């Protein structure tokens, strides 16, 4: 065996070390499953074994779960013939059956967790009779399958509710949030918590002193804690649970729907039947296009991009000792914070020393919050703040490897600070400009070293937002891009690389969602329908409330700037007139002045402003399914077609970046796997036909770009084409 090592002590206690060769982290590979079969057989049949304990051969944890690459390949299978389904059931049930054999082998089985156990890793632990977890700061126990569109298929949906009751188990299963050893203990899914290094000893002590080889659910008279679905105490988990799930997900996530169903059906029958039910729902879930899209974007693409893929080859790794941040507002301070958190000496500079210190105080507030939440030690916080040097003197940025400019979106100002900084920088230092709207190539004109000038678009709040949009200007060099990717990786963010264009990728596409909301308003759709259906598409908020949050006057200014810059090429939108009427006609600037598309009465929830009907009379007030479908389609397709246009125009070249960026930047409906995955899910040809139809009815903003027509004609998908080009 390559993955497991079995040793037997004189006491008859066996230690089984799980250690997948050639990988930094254990995952459940097909090979490991084959050998696990041998392990279970050996435990059951070897008379020299009295009991056993599983441990990890890796320092970083026990097991991160299934090999998602394999799951991705099996997702969204089209062949659902009876033979195929029976065959797939047998294959999918294999690991689950092994765990069942393990827990019914007649000998006590314990597990000593010194590090994380996720997905199949935790499911293995749940099939053991005794679980000990060490109190490591990085300990993570959880069933995150739902977050990538899958359902725990190794007994997780059945054992967890039987251990702690359906009501307590469902949040862990549905939302997939991993927990610490202490939380797992108080929730009831580990038996003991010990200090690091003591898990094995505790497990062995239990094997020697207690060693009960029967799971609670295999004992006579077992009842599910809290009661089954048809008891007074057990029913709310399902009756209310279904409503809560729907409130949260709008039923956009088949994995979560199926998890709730598998728990409901499973806990009413004995374990063996329950596991068969789980396997069936596991397969149904894996067959959904959402699973395929979510595994790809939320796991594979996101991980690859976070590692800086694809980075220009032949550029030496960028070693960052010191970095400057110009502008100590919210953005600049946030950037300084994440740099310092990553161990980079940071110079935070502003016009006055006082303003720079104010920025640093913002960082100190963030540190305090982290310490209060137990996510940072006092000393680490002090060290972090010690790395931030607040100043008003540009001389202090001398020796920086990279400088990020985060001043107001004003060309003249940006040009001025560019010149001031470049005067102090070495020839190879990167100058990054943080802007969400101004084209980089234009800003680079102020630079004497345009090859080292690049756009680095951070999102607010910087400490929380995972994405960074890197904008390559016309003259930005490959080396500059490679260094910037290294920088983003160093500050633990996920980069996407885009080419220079108005609004770049994220702002340009996000703007279509809100603008389409107003187009619908102008077309007479009742605003409540626009907002409710907007949220139901899986977007985090309705388009009109988002406009209010951004501030209507600000958007008008951006549009005005675009009109001046573009001249005849400027495409007016229906929303321009509506925003103009709201801001200039009614003084409604959005949430910031307490009135926009909504009214914001003190002490009461916001309400759609009744006066909207005066600007855009409502002609479609009934929320019938046809209208709902039209609104849903327009809101999603408008964003998707813009993302495709960006791909077609070369603003973005990697579909993975387009999809990951959309989800991380503006919360594009995560169930789709991103706007380009959505197009593939619909089918490119069908999407093109739908957009042609929408363009004819609603305007050229829906016209599919040439690239999509090409792919439609070939009969393939966006991702297949990208894979072919990469090959």
């Amino acid at each position: 065996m390559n993955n497991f090592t079995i040793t037997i002590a004189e006491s008859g206690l066996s230690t089984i070390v799980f250690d997948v060769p050639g990988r930094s982290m254990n995952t459940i590979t097909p090979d490991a499953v084959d050998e696990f079969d041998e392990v279970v057989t050996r435990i059951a049949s070897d008379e020299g074994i009295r009991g056993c304990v599983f441990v990890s051969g890796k320092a970083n944890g026990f097991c991160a779960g299934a090999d998602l690459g394999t799951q991705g390949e099996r997702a969204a299978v089209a062949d659902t013939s009876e033979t195929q389904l029976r065959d797939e059931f047998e294959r999918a049930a294999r690991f689950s059956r092994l765990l069942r054999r393990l827990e019914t082998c007649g000998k006590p089985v314990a597990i000593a967790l010194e590090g994380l156990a996720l997905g199949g890793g935790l499911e293995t632990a749940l099939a053991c009779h005794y679980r000990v977890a060490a109190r490591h700061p990085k300990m993570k126990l959880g069933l995150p399958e739902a977050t990538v569109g899958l359902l725990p298929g190794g007994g997780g949906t059945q054992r967890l509710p039987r251990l702690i009751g359906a009501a307590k188990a469902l949040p862990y299963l549905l939302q997939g949030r991993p927990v610490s050893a202490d939380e797992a203990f108080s929730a009831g899914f580990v038996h003991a918590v010990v200090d690091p290094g003591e898990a094995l000893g505790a497990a062995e002590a239990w094997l020697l002193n207690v060693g009960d080889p029967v799971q609670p659910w295999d004992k006579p008279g077992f009842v599910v804690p809290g009661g089954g679905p048809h008891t007074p105490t057990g029913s709310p988990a399902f009756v209310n649970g279904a409503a809560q799930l729907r409130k949260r997900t709008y039923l956009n996530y088949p994995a979560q729907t199926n998890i709730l169903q598998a728990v409901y059906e499973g806990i009413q029958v004995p374990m063996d039947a329950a596991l068969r039910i789980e396997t069936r729902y596991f397969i149904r879930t894996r067959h959904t296009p959402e699973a395929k899209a979510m595994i790809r974007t939320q796991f594979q693409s996101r991980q690859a991009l976070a590692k800086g893929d694809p980075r220009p080859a032949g550029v030496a790794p960028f070693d960052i000792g010191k970095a400057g941040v110009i502008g100590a507002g919210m953005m600049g301070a946030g950037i300084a914070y994440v740099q310092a958190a990553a161990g980079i000496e940071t110079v935070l500079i502003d016009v006055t020393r006082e303003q720079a210190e104010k920025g640093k105080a913002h960082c100190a507030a963030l540190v305090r919050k982290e310490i209060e939440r137990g996510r940072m030690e006092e000393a680490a916080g002090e060290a972090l703040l010690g790395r931030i040097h607040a100043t008003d003197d540009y001389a202090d940025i001398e020796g920086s490897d990279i400088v990020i400019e985060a001043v107001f979106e004003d060309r003249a100002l940006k040009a001025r600070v560019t010149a001031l900084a470049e005067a102090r920088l070495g020839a190879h230092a990167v100058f990054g400009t943080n802007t969400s709207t101004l084209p980089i190539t234009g800003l680079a004109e102020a630079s004497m070293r345009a090859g080292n000038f690049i756009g680095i678009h951070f999102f607010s709040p910087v400490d929380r937002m995972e994405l960074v949009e890197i904008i390559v200007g016309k003259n930005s060099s490959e080396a500059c891009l490679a260094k910037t990717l290294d920088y983003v990786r160093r500050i633990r963010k996920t980069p996407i690389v885009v080419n220079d264009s108005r609004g770049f990728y994220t702002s340009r596409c996000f703007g279509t969602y809100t603008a389409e909301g107003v187009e619908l308003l102008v077309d007479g759709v009742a605003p409540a329908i626009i907002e409710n259906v907007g949220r139901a598409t899986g977007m985090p908020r309705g388009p009109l409330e988002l406009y209010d949050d951004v501030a209507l006057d600000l958007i008008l200014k951006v549009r005005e700037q675009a009109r001046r810059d573009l001249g005849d090429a400027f495409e007016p939108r229906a929303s321009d007139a509506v925003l103009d009427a709201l801001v200039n006609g009614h003084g409604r600037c959005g949430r910031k002045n307490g009135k926009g598309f909504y009214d914001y009465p003190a002490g009461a929830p916001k309400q759609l402003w009744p006066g909207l009907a005066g600007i855009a009379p409502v002609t479609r007030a009934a929320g019938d399914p046809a209208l709902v479908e039209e609104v849903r389609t327009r809101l999603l397709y408008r964003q998707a077609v813009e993302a495709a246009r960006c791909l077609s125009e070369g603003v973005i070249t990697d579909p993975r970046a387009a999809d990951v960026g959309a989800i991380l930047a503006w919360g594009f409906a995560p169930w789709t796997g991103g706007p380009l995955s959505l197009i593939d899910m619909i089918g490119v040809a069908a999407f093109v036909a739908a957009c042609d139809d929408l363009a004819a009815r609603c305007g050229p903003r829906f016209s599919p770009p040439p690239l999509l027509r090409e792919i439609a004609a070939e009969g393939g998908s966006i991702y297949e084409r990208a894979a072919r080009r990469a090959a």
Partner: protein
Amino acid sequence: MTNAYIFDAVRTPRGKGRKDGALHEITALSLIVQVLEAISDRNALDTAYVDDLIVGCVSPVSEQGSDIARTAALMAGYAESVAGVQVSRFCASGLEACNIAAAKVASGEAQLAIGGGVESMSRIPMGSDRGAWPTDPSVSFATSFVGQGIGADLIATLDGHSRADVDAYAVESQRRAARAWTEGRFHRSIVPVRDQLGLIALDRDEHMRPQTTMQSLAGLEPAFTKAADAGFGAVALQNYPQIERIQHVHHAGNSSGIVDGASAVLFGTRKMGQELGLSPRARVVGAASIGSDPSIMLTGPAAVTSKLLGRLGMSVRDIDLFELNEAFASVVLRMMEELHVPHDQMNVNGGAIAMGHPLGATGAMILGAAVDELERSDRETALVTLCVGAGMGTAMVVERV
């Protein structure tokens, strides 16, 4: 087809459906047995002629389980030959029991049949039977399950009915019920409930609050805000996205009361009536049931009324009296507006807001109330209907003989 006639209709007074309610000490079985005894005693009935007994009951578990109809027939001293079946059409169970009894008579299956219902909500709380509809997630998702109260508030929101509108309806229901009791309009059908010693435990609807005013109702908190916040409000909005926010206007004072009670109606052929010396009081003109949106749940009455009247070649104008169960004020307001039913022909003696809604029993109670009122007010036709769980509606049209 033979005509089915109504010979008699009785009901218990309704006791508050709480542990301190007057009927909490009386078993559900005893409630239905006492109305069956009244039917047989008042009419000196040879129960051997009764072919079947249909009893509506919405939570047929525990003491209401195991086919309470057959149990009740045996315990009421009916002939051993009398069959019994328990049915559930949720809130219309009692009327559905009558529809079935009438249909059995009309088809020739029965010459004499009893329809009725029972629900001791104080002893077997609503929802005790659980069921797949609210509990199985797949059903909940497919049907957008939300509690009835949310549906009632949603109807008021969609129709633009304010708190004042629904409260005004409730005040009038209380006024009418009080007047009906004062004038003895329920005198003929009420069977006082007796306790284990044979003493009267309750002889008058216990839930009524005749002193109710707009002002007294104004102090009541909306009853369904919490359920809405728990997720059901969001489900309703996902189904009715034209609503920005549900206006929660219903509360304990303008919703039907939770009460205990039982009812029974005796049906038969004219011929059997003649043989047994029974006088027909009303003729069953027709009956129907429908399904409508299960989520908003309570919009069935207008739909089933239109279907039934259409089939009978009648219009709303041909009906003198309407009895629509007052599950919630907005349900009645909607039917009156949708079908242009004048308020002075709707629930003229009050309804469940004042007197309570003993789920399985109510349908047969309001059918009896309609027959009594046709006679008292010398009118000809009545339509009886209820809104029903999962979006159904059930109705019967009767005419005075």
